């Protein structure tokens, strides 16, 4: 059997989405700039900076591939971050972290119930859930930032291991794990089937409810995991971290080439999408671009990448 070029998944990823070319353009462009972009410290720092969003994206990708989406991750992020600190005096650090993650899984479970079991619109219901959780976070902290009193806690995200930042290592491990889950397990493939065509997946004997539900649970869990890592990174839990996070992460996933319609995309694509964002921030700071222009450029880049993606599809559709 001949493995055609088209069916090679790697080639597919490289050609089908526009975040990678964009990253390459930035990488090449920075070669000619007189900045300290190409220093090991900066490159690692860039990864380190993107890591929380990347971890969030891995979970969100599961729901998006399954034809849903999760805009409650911002809320889960802050509440679990706060819990992982607030519970420390009560039960100690590790149990507190565990509780925070369980909380995320629980919220994911509720999201799954509403979206999958009750068939509500995921976009809107998770948006509402995110709002609710923001309120919970404020209530929990009386809207005051809550620093951790245990010094070890901070080292989880800020420590290094043989010179590599812990966060980068954790992100890498989660990347491999989730990519494997999506590509090489029945669960992952079923997610693609469900996102591609829900009814067909159901008729084909896939337990659609359980599978898609699980995607939401996992997304809640990763959001909570990211929340505790963020709290550890900042050594503080607060209600004001997650405001735009959910939209940015979902947007990054889509920019990477995972389709919001479901069934198309994957973890590597999502990672590229968010890395593109992270790198853009880094590059713009390096080049000393002023704030408002940065905002303008970022918006323009989002529009441009999605525009190019859609346009490529249109060209293909209409090719004469």
């Amino acid at each position, binding site marked *: 059997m001949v493995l055609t070029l088209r069916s090679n998944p790697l080639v597919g990823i490289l050609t089908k989405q526009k975040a990678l070319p964009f990253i390459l353009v930035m990488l090449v462009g920075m070669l000619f700039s007189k900045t300290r972009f190409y220093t090991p410290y900066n490159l690692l720092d860039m990864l380190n900076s993107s890591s929380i969003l990347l971890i969030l994206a891995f979970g969100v990708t599961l729901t998006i591939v399954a034809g849903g989406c999760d805009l409650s991750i911002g809320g889960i992020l802050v509440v679990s971050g706060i819990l992982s600190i607030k519970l420390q005096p009560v039960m100690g650090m590790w149990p507190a972290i565990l509780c925070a993650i369980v909380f995320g899984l629980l919220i994911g479970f509720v999201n799954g119930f509403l979206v999958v079991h009750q068939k509500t619109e995921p976009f809107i219901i998770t948006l509402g859930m995110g709002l609710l959780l923001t309120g919970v976070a404020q209530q929990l902290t009386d809207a005051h930032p809550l620093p951790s009193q245990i010094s070890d806690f901070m080292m989880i995200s800020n420590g290094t291991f043989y010179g590599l930042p812990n966060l980068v290592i954790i992100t890498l491990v989660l990347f491999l794990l989730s990519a494997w889950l999506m590509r090489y397990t029945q669960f992952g493939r079923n997610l693609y089937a469900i996102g591609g065509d829900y009814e067909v997946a159901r008729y084909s004997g896939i337990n659609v409810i359980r599978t898609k539900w699980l995607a939401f649970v996992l997304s809640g869990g990763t959001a909570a995991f990211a929340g505790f890592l963020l709290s550890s990174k900042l050594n503080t839990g607060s209600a004001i*971290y997650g405001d735009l996070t959910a939209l940015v992460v979902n947007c990054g996933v889509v920019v990477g080439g995972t389709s919001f319609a479901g069934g198309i995309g994957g973890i590597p694509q999502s990672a590229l999408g968010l890395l593109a964002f992270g790198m853009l921030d880094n590059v713009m700071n*390096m080049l000393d671009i002023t704030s408002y222009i940065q905002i303008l450029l970022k918006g323009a880049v989002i529009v441009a990448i999605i525009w190019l993606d859609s346009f490529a599809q249109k060209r293909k559709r209409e090719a004469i």
Partner: protein
Amino acid sequence: AKVKAAFIVSNQANESQAFSAREFVKYGPSYGFNVSTFDAKGDTQVESEIVTNCIAQNFKVIFLNPNDIHAIVPALMKAKQAGLIVGMFSSYLQGADQKWSDFAASSDDLLGGQLAAQQFIKHFPNGATIVEIGGQAGHNAQIQRHDGFNGDKGIKGSNIKVLDFKACQQWATDQAQAIMEDDIVKYGNQIQGVFVHWDNGATGVIQAAKAAGLKNLYIVGVDGNKAGYVQVKSGDQAVSIAQDFTSMVKTSLQLAKDKLAGKTVPAFTVIPQIIYDKNTVNNYPTPEW
């Protein structure tokens, strides 16, 4: 050659900080600095990433206006380890955290709240019932102003009674106005005064009071920006506790210069606040922001 310095703004869409950023760029060279501005866009996480990014870019000095004084500490540790000079701007680290900055130049928000309280006590020697409308819930300035206002050197122990306190979701005029409107419905003429955490919020409060026909409200705001200045001048607002960002910028630059020269600098320099009221306001020029 000028020293590379960075001013990290918590949110440049906020006018006082946008103004401060302009002042830094303007005055930096005369103190021997080339100041670049970075905007955390109101996001704590972004702010700590900008700090590490500044380390990567080899900045010698960073001036920092944090969104969250606790959350920025881990990033500041890295900055200190890398040997940067860290100056807090319009904010200061507390307690044990103070060692992670070299100096701070700030008007004391706690003091701002206290000053506001004293205005009320002075104006209502026989006591009064007022409402307090807070800025963005969770924002450091909001917390400090609230604590200062209600604390020991504030109205605590006086016979100024707060009927109702609510903070907004953002520093948004329309939210302050909606809260004030609802407060008026609820308390009506009982409201004798309003402490609102920022002058642009006071604009909304004034509109709400006007629409309800409530006269002679004693409104106290903080900031002393153009809105506050004009409102005090026109008599719509009684007092504005003004912050002097220009001298805050200059002080910060001077402190950094001293520190670079190896002098010891104080950990916390308070930039005094100015009180605009109908008697004093004409002594000052219209603010630039």
